[in-house]
């Protein structure tokens, strides 16, 4: 009894995970500001001494991560929709009050005046939650400064409510938590980067490329089928062996 089938089975498990990652990316094709997950590379389990002969090398899971490539902007004509132009992240806090990184910009003002995003996270500015007092109008500047016209103010009175925390973080330092939010891998949030520009009245789409994901799905499907073929071959080989044994007896 040979163990070819065990090797194939192991690879099939890895391929299933990859298929699931691609399906999750496709499910988030229309999630504002979503950053896609990269399929795991599949590597060999150990390095082989060139002089030795090793024919049973199990595949194993390699690196995976988040693709932080910038996506397209769509215009929404809503002053509280913002998008970051170029690289960089907005800082927000999740429901547990932990700081996270986000590229979502679909902001809204809560009943208590705090500025939230579409996924109920709170936008941070100057190290705390940004709060907008009762206002008639909100304007968001290119550098993330939020100014508002207070209720009942005369003419063009504009007061500053704060500035959105915008930070730049290298792509290889971004990791996704189990709650789906992005965080710096080393847990450190660098100081604000004044060079990051934001565009108001726009949103950034998900950076999932439907075509690329479809190709991934097909590729994974074919590799999966190839593994099944190998299992089938192993089965045939064993069948032949047992047949031979039978005829000679």
């Amino acid at each position, binding site marked *: 009894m040979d163990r070819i089938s065990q090797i194939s089975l192991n690879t099939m498990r890895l391929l299933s*995970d990859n*298929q*699931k*990652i*691609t*399906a*999750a*990316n*496709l*499910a*988030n*094709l*229309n*999630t*504002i500001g*979503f950053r896609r*997950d990269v399929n*795991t590379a599949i590597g060999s389990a150990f390095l082989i001494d060139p002089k030795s002969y090793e024919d049973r090398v199990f595949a194993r*899971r390699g*690196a*995976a*991560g988040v693709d932080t490539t910038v996506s397209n902007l769509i215009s929404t004509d*809503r002053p509280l929709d913002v998008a970051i132009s170029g690289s960089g992240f907005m800082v927000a806090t999740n429901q547990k009050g932990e700081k996270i990184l986000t590229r979502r910009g679909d902001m*809204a*003002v*809560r*009943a*208590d*005046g705090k500025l939230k995003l*579409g*996924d*109920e996270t709170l936008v941070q500015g100057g190290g705390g939650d940004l709060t907008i007092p*009762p*206002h*008639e109008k909100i304007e968001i500047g290119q550098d993330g400064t939020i100014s508002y*016209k207070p*209720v*009942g*103010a005369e003419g063009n009175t504009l007061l500053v409510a704060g500035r959105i925390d915008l930070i730049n973080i290298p792509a290889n330092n971004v*990791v*996704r*938590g*189990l*709650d*789906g939010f992005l965080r710096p*891998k080393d847990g450190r949030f660098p100081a604000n980067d004044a060079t990051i520009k934001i565009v108001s009245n726009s949103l950034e789409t998900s950076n999932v490329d*439907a075509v690329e*994901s*479809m190709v991934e*799905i*097909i590729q*994974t*499907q074919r590799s*999966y*089928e190839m593994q*099944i*073929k190998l*299992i*089938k071959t192993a*089965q045939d080989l064993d069948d032949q062996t047992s047949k031979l044994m039978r005829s000679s007896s």
Partner: protein
Amino acid sequence: MPDALNVAKTGLNAQQARMSVISNNLANVNTIGFKRDRANFETLLYQDLREVGAQTSENTQLPTGLAIGTGVRIVSSEKLHSQGSIINTDNSLDMTIDGAGFFQVLMPDGQIAYTRAGNFTKSSTGQIVSANGYSLEPAITIPENASSITISRDGIVSVGIPGQTEPQVVGNIEIASFPNNGGLKPLSENMLAATGASGAPIVGAPGANGQGKLMQGALEASNVNVVEELVNMIETQRAYEVNSKAISAVDNMQKFLTQNV
């Protein structure tokens, strides 16, 4: 493996829900004072397969982890309260709020509902009522013998009485605004209700304290932009299609497995 099926299913569900939001917007393209909805998506929880920083040997650690997503869901649908375009009707009881604020309407259950639909009419008793017959709040009654109705920019309703030279003031229209319009709960009949998320209404005369001004003889059209909704519809349809492709790919993988082994 069926995991990938479930993940793609969440995508189909979310796109389906988005499509209902879009169809509802399109269905209300001619509803006076209608504010369009937008569906907000969020990612579902992630499943950890390999913890980042885990030890791969005594001295080495995993440089990247592996967390697999479980899909997407609709977290909220949000009303976008941008101003709709204004249509002139020259009907004396048609009103538009130019700016922020809502008309207050007394619902049959005694609650106050809020609406941007300014197509009011007179009831049999002369009271100003909404298109569904609900009374405008505060209640204003137009005398039977009134020959004309004038509503000022700041909400003063006055009527002309035959035989009198001076117009007679019969009431003041007040409008309500909210700290967070997005938190209003949509009711049927184009009405909205205040909730904890919207905050308490700030009631005042039109034009004062940041409230919008009234415009008589005009109606506010729905703020649904047909072209935008159609683009959203195409986007949703394509997203639905690729998710169903993912399902059929997984299905084919299963089929191949059962047929060949």
